[in-house]
């Protein structure tokens, strides 16, 4: 997310925190570590007998601690600010989606408000503790309460938060609004450990699927009796035309996954048994982004962001945003998943099936898509369903 202060420095400037600085930081940390170890060992040596009379009698630890606290907080604030800005080239770049621009603005506003609160409260913390560190003959001020003050600092945060909530609600409702009619639908199905991508093909309709029909040759469990599935394509990359709304239809095959397009500020869980969706409008093509970031190898990416097992960190798909024309061209070139001449690997239909009652009609499993006529999967009556296993 790019901070407004980047007005002073172009998006593509060399990061303040480059390798050199990081190496220095490493060295400093190692030095600090060494110092601490030496200090610790010394202290341990001196206080080995915990009941020993005080070798530190001359040190006023109270003042020392007050000073270290003040120093740490002040240095900490400075470092936090320095690195927050200095590392900004590491943050996500400017949003590549329309709603993301608003989200980033809201983030920045919240950051500004909360940042000010954190800094001021910490300065007060330091000021109050340092000024009021123990003095022998001083008496503290007996000030048990003040209702007006309580009122003030209840209402002030409430007002600030209300503003943020209203802003958030506005954005939220806009993001979660029903998708526009002309949105391009892309179906993403998460599985361990990859994403299946599906476009509806020339008929603009997704074919029916049934998870019980999934096999090695039928990734989504297409029910081939539904003709509209026969032109569906399952490419290895996600292509989207710029400036047109895209509706992601999100599903999961085995466990929870989550569709995450960081550059587009898109996230939606993929739930087995409960399809979800998320729509957005990409506003920057991959080419534009490459130019902006001065990185010819840049690509938008899709990642999984709900813990799903050993390959959770490796569920990658590349996302490409192109012009309308390029998109149409690409789509035209995609081959349908359905292959009428697929080599026969005939797997007997009820090989390992237990006895079933006659009411279930979903027994026919396409071992060889397109070759045989497939019975339509009936509505499940009882749970005695044909199971088959492909390993």
């Amino acid at each position, binding site marked *: 997310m790019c901070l407004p202060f980047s007005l002073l420095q172009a998006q593509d400037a060399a990061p303040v925190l480059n390798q050199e600085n990081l190496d220095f930081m490493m060295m400093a940390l190692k030095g600090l570590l060494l110092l601490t170890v030496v200090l610790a060992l010394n202290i341990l040596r001196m206080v080995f007998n915990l009941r020993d009379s005080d070798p530190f009698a001359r040190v006023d630890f109270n003042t020392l601690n007050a000073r270290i606290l003040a120093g740490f907080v002040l240095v900490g604030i400075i470092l936090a600010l320095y690195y927050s800005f200095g590392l900004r080239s590491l943050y996500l770049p400017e949003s590549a989606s329309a709603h993301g621009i608003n989200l980033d603005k809201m983030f920045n506003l919240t950051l500004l408000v909360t940042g000010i609160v954190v800094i001021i409260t910490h300065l007060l913390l330091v000021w109050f503790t340092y000024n009021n560190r123990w003095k022998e003959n001083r008496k503290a001020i007996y000030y048990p309460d003040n209702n007006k003050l309580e009122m003030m600092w209840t209402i002030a945060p409430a007002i600030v938060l209300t503003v943020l909530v209203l802003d958030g609600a506005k954005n939220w409702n806009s993001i979660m609004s029903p998708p526009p009619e002309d949105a391009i639908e892309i179906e993403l199905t998460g599985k361990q450990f990859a994403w299946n991508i599906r476009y509806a093909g020339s008929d603009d309709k997704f074919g029916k699927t049934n998870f019980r029909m999934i096999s090695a040759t039928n990734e989504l469990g297409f029910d081939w009796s539904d003709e509209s599935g026969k032109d569906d394509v399952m490419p290895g990359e996600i292509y989207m035309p710029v400036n047109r709304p895209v509706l992601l239809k999100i599903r999961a095959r085995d466990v929870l996954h989550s569709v995450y397009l960081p550059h587009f500020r898109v*996230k939606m869980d993929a739930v087995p048994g409960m399809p979800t969706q998320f729509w957005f409008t990409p506003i920057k093509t991959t080419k534009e982004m490459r130019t902006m970031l001065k990185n010819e190898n840049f690509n938008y990416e899709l990642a999984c962001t709900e813990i799903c097992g050993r390959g959770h960190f490796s569920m990658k798909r590349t996302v490409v945003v192109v012009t309308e024309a390029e998109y149409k061209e690409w789509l035209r070139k995609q081959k349908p998943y359905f292959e009428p001449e697929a080599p026969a690997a005939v797997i007997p239909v009820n090989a390992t099936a237990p006895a079933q009652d006659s009411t279930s009609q979903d027994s026919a499993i396409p071992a060889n898509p397109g070759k045989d006529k497939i019975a339509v999967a009936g509505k499940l009556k009882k749970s005695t369903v044909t199971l088959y296993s492909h390993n």
Partner: protein
Amino acid sequence: MSSETLDLREQLEEAPSIAPAEHAHSHHHGSGHDESHDSHSEEDELPEVNFIRKYVFSTDHKTIAKQFLISGIIMAIVGLLLSVLFRIQLAWPQEDLGILRPILGKWINESGQLDPEFYLAMVTMHGTIMVFFVLTAGLSGTFSNFLIPLQLGARDMASGFINMLSYWFFFASAVIMTYSLFLETGPAGGGWVIYPPLSALPQAISGSGMGMTLWLISMALFIVSSLLGAINYISTVLNLRTKGMSMTRMPLTIWAFFVTAIIGTLSFPVLFSAALLLIFDRSFGTSFYLSDIYIAGKALENHGGSPILFQHLFWFLGHPEVYIVLLPALGMTSEIISTNARKPIFGYRAMIGSILGIAFLSFIVWAHHMFVTGMNPFLGTVFMLLTLIIAVPSAVKTFNYLATLWGGNIRFTTAMLFSIGLVSLFITGGVTGIFLGNAALDIPLHDTYFVTAHFHLVMGSASAFGFFAGVYHWFPKMFGKMMNDRLGYLHFWLTFISVYLVFFPMHFMGMAGIPRRYYAASTFDFTQGFTNMNIFITLSAILGFSGQLVFLYNFFGSIFKGKKAPLNPWNSNTLEWTTPHNPQHGNWEGQIPAVYRWPYDYSKPGVNNDYLPQHIPDGAIQDWDHNPANASLLYDENGNRVADTPAAHH
């Protein structure tokens, strides 16, 4: 002795619930009645208890508190070790981690790579152990048990027997959870939130086999332990306060423990239900959470379930749980800051109000953990609104702490340092909650390191700091010795600095979109760029870990070799400091003191000393003021000093 001076518990023990007042007057309590054994179960009326009864299966709240304390520390070491181990993976993902084989055995493969499933298992167990075993049991279990009777002027908890059961259920739970770390198939690996279907299907991740089964059994026992503890705390706070201790004269510590117990009573059973249904899905073929699943080459039978149902049930506990973790720490902070600033806590009633407000609101915000699950957007708006409201009482508490510090006369004892550190962490961690509670902003931030930074600062570290503050502050009471102060300062600074060094950079990683629970950053372009940062964080974590070694040395060493503690080393007002050292069963020898004021009269105008204990009658203030050593003595309600108790001679 007239019946009014009788210990109220004796009256209640004998009389039925109807009109106890009448029975109180009509009862005869001769001198044969031994006051220090009231309200105990039959076991405690034995004149002598053997070692096992005294130290192992003890019903004494102080012993049980120490049992929780030691167990909590041990589990914390385990949890911390796990975090250092997986941080090593994150810092050096390409390196040969063969040196870890002595610890991790087969989980490091031949080429020195950590098994990705075990990485997830470590993350899961770290979370589970820290949240439940360390910060719930270790924090509440220790301090609620130790302080509630002592600060309220009670001889023990309402039921020592149930209290003992509470500890041993916890112990069993901890043993099972720790054992699961060593399973062949590994411990549970679905995140500490164990969402199904991942946690329901052993074929999805190996930890969801026996590891998950043991996790569930352990947690069932843990929930029973927590509930047993909570019911005791509630009853004791309601029933066993000493004379003069109205609810609004209780220390804020007790208010925090009390409200925490109420929250636990209402929320833990819901986790139990969630776990129960999960057990059925895992082992008995039901379909509460599972539907339409094809995994490991098979389409599963389950139909009609919803993983989202689990999330609702889980987070209904999950969110109040974080306040169960936090409130005791906040309560103790009120106490410690007030005592060490020599000032009344600012806004006592507002503090109580905030605790109650936080408790109430904590039950109606749970779905802010579920904004991106595909929920009805309207629900999202509602939960966003409620979540941001809960920031208000939290802010009130923070400002009250600051106001307490203003104009004080501050002693930077180690406990005070940790309490001040808690305030700092609470602020820094709390404000990032404002980002995440905003449903729209949660979309890019959910399940990234931004969340990790948030909860580690506001809940994990803040509560850990509360834990340390409590240990340093009440160690003299628990063990009769002082912890070494300089080692304490060292411990604090190492911990405070390393906590910020570890978790602050994670905000940056969140803003870069780095997801949580990632074994490595190797797959994606957008996750590159934090190689050095990860090393930096890991080194800081190792620094923090070594800081805890200082604590362990100080803690265990001081138990045996610490300087002998004065009776009231912090010159505190509360009742626990009026008992003798290492109080025996029954806490006070002789009569329990009554209280005459709230516990926060520090630096009161008109009183010479900068503190005025609760138990000094108004009539005795002059006397006490000129000789505060008398504070260890007890007074009757007419202001007369009672016969010297042994406490006076320490």
